[in-house]
C-alpha cells in the first residue's frame, strides 16, 4: 500500500502557535509580569532624582530596558516551560500528537506562540517607555529649550530597534528553554536549568575573555567551543547610549539580529531532534 505523505504544514504550525498564545495570555503569570514591568517602567519618572549622575532621559531609558530585560527573561523562561509542560502534564499532547502532525510542527508551533507572547510583552513595555520618554522630553524642551536647540535628542527609531533585538534575544532564550524541556521530565527542572542558561549566556563573554590567552590549547579550544554553544547575550545590549542621543550602528544591529536568528534556528532544530523520539 502506498502511503500519501503528510507534508509539513505551516498552517498547522500557526494553529498550534495561536493556541499556545491564547493559553499564555490567559495565564495569570503573564498578566502579573506584564503589569509589573509596565508599572516599573511607568514609575521611572518618579525615580529620576536618583539617577546617579546620568541624564534624566537616559535614566528613564535604562530603567525601562532594565525592566524589560528582567521581567522579559523571567517571562520567557517560565512561559516557555509552562506552556510546554502543560501540554505534557495535562495530556493534551497525547490527543494532539495522535493527529497527523509532525513533531516539528508542535515544537516550532510552541516556540512561535511563546515568541508572540514575548513580542506583545516587549511591544507594550517598549511602547510605554517610548511614550514616557517622548512626554518627558517634551517637558524638558519647554523647560530648557537651548539643550534641545536641534530638536529631540532621543532616537526613537533606534529605541524600537533595540526593543526588537531584545525580543530576538528572548527568542534565543526561549529556544534554549524549549530544548531543555524536550528532554526534561519536569517543569521545575526546566525553569531552574533555563535560569542557569540565562546566567551563562550573560556571563560567558567573561570566561571567554579570561581564558582566551591561557597556554593550554585544549582549555582554550574548550572555552571557545563553549562560547559558541552558549550565545553571548551581551551582544544584545546596544541601548546603553540611546538616552543620550547616540546613534545605533544599523550594521551592528543587523549582525546581532542575524546572530539571534541563526541561534534560534540551530537550537530549535536541536529541540525538534530531541523531541522527535520523546515518549509521550
Amino acid at each position, binding site marked *: *500500500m502506498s*502511503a*500519501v*505523505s*503528510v507534508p509539513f*504544514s505551516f*498552517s*498547522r504550525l500557526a*494553529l*498550534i502557535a495561536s*493556541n499556545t498564545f*491564547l*493559553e499564555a495570555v*490567559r495565564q495569570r503569570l503573564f498578566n502579573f509580569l506584564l503589569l509589573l514591568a509596565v508599572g516599573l517602567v511607568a514609575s521611572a519618572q518618579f525615580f529620576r532624582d536618583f539617577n546617579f549622575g546620568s541624564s534624566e532621559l537616559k535614566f528613564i531609558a535604562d530603567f525601562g530596558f532594565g525592566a524589560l530585560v528582567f521581567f522579559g527573561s523571567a517571562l520567557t523562561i517560565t512561559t516557555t516551560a509552562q506552556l510546554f509542560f502543560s501540554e505534557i502534564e*495535562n*495530556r*493534551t499532547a*497525547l*490527543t*494532539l*500528537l*495522535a*493527529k*497527523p*502532525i*509532525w513533531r516539528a510542527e508542535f515544537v516550532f508551533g510552541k516556540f512561535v506562540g511563546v515568541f508572540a507572547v514575548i513580542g506583545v510583552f516587549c511591544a507594550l513595555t517598549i511602547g510605554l517607555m517610548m511614550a514616557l520618554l517622548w512626554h518627558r522630553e517634551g517637558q524638558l524642551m519647554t523647560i530648557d529649550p537651548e539643550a534641545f536647540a536641534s530638536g529631540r535628542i532621543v532616537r526613537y527609531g533606534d529605541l524600537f530597534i533595540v526593543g526588537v533585538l531584545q525580543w530576538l534575544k528572548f527568542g534565543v532564550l526561549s529556544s534554549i528553554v524549549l530544548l531543555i524541556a524536550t528532554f526534561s521530565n519536569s517543569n521545575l527542572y526546566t525553569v531552574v536549568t533555563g535560569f542557569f542558561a540565562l546566567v551563562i549566556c550573560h556571563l560567558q563573554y567573561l570566561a571567554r575573555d579570561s581564558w582566551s590567552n591561557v597556554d593550554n590549547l585544549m582549555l582554550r579550544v574548550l572555552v571557545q567551543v563553549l562560547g559558541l554553544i552558549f550565545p553571548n547575550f551581551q551582544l544584545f545590549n546596544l541601548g546603553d547610549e540611546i538616552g543620550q542621543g547616540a546613534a545605533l550602528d544599523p550594521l551592528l544591529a543587523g549582525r546581532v539580529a542575524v546572530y539571534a536568528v541563526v541561534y534560534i534556528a540551530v537550537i530549535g532544530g536541536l529541540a525538534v531532534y530531541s523531541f522527535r*523520539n520523546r*515518549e*509521550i
Partner: protein
Amino acid sequence: MNTPVPAISIKGLTKDFAVTLRGVKLRAVDDLSLTVEEGHVFGLLGPNGSGKSTTIKVILGLLGATAGDVRVFGVPSHEVESRRNVGYLPEAPYFYRYLSGYELVRFYARVCGVPRKQLQARVKDVVDWVGLSKAADRRVGTYSKGMLQRIGLAQALVHDPKLIVLDEPTAGVDPVGTAEMCELILKLKQQGKTVLITSHLLAQIEDVCDRVAILDHGKLIVEGSLQELVGQRDRQALIVDSLPPADIEALRGWLVSRGHALNAIEQPRARLDQLFLSKVSRGGHAGASGGVGSNVVPKSSAPNTSAPVAASPKPKA
C-alpha cells in the same frame, strides 16, 4: 485478488521502558501479535499494567516499539501518514479548558486538515452526533466527565477517520454516560468504522465488541470472537413462562427420555445497569447536552436472561 489491508497489524511487538539509569528495563509489552480487521469493534482487555495503553500508544506513534512491526492500514505506525485515518480518545481526556466545545472540535478539525469550506458543517455535525450541541458553546472547563468523553469522541471523529481508538472511554463515567457511549460505539460500527477499545468494564466490551484480546503482563493470553471465547456451543437456554413443579418434573422426564439433561432452572434477571437506566432519566442526565446523537440505535443486546434453563443438547420441537 488483493488481500484487504487490516486496520491494525501488530507483529511481535515488544516495548521496554528503562526504569533505572543503570539500564534496568520494564517490559510493558512482550512479543504481541494481533490483527484488527477493518469494520470490526475490537476490545483490548487486561488488568492495570497489562500493556493495553502502551500498545495503543505504539499504534498511535506516541511511543516507539523496542521490537516488532506495527502498521495502521499498512503504514508503519511511527510515520505521520499512519495517523491520517485515525481518531483517538485518550483515557480521562483533558482538553484546553478555555475553549468552548465548538472551538475545541474546530481546532482539532483544522489540525487534521478538514477543508475550510466543510469545517463549520463538519464540526456542527459531529458535535450534534455526540449529543453535545446544546452545551457546545460552553467552555470545556465546565463540562462533566461524561461530556468530556463525548467532546473527546467528537474531536476524534471530526476528520471522519476509518479507525477510532478509544482508551477506557467510560472510565469515571456513570452508567447513563456509559450506556450512551456504548450506543455511539455501536453507531460507529454500523457506519463501518473500525473501533479499538480498551475497558475494564467487561459487560460493556461484551455488548459492543466483535472480537477481544486479553493481555496480562504484556503478553497476549487469549484472542478471538466473543462467541468463540464465551459462547457455550454445547448448551442452550430456553426462556419459558413460570412452570409449576409438576410440569418441570414432566419436562425433565421428557428430556431424560430423549437422552438430554435439564441442568439448571433459574429465575431470569435483568442486568442491574439496565434497571438503573430504566429508572434514571437519560434526558435529565444529558442536561445541556441534549442526549445522544440523532440516529436511533438498536440496543446492543437483549436483557441478560442468563441461562434460566440450560439444556444439553438442543431439544427438538
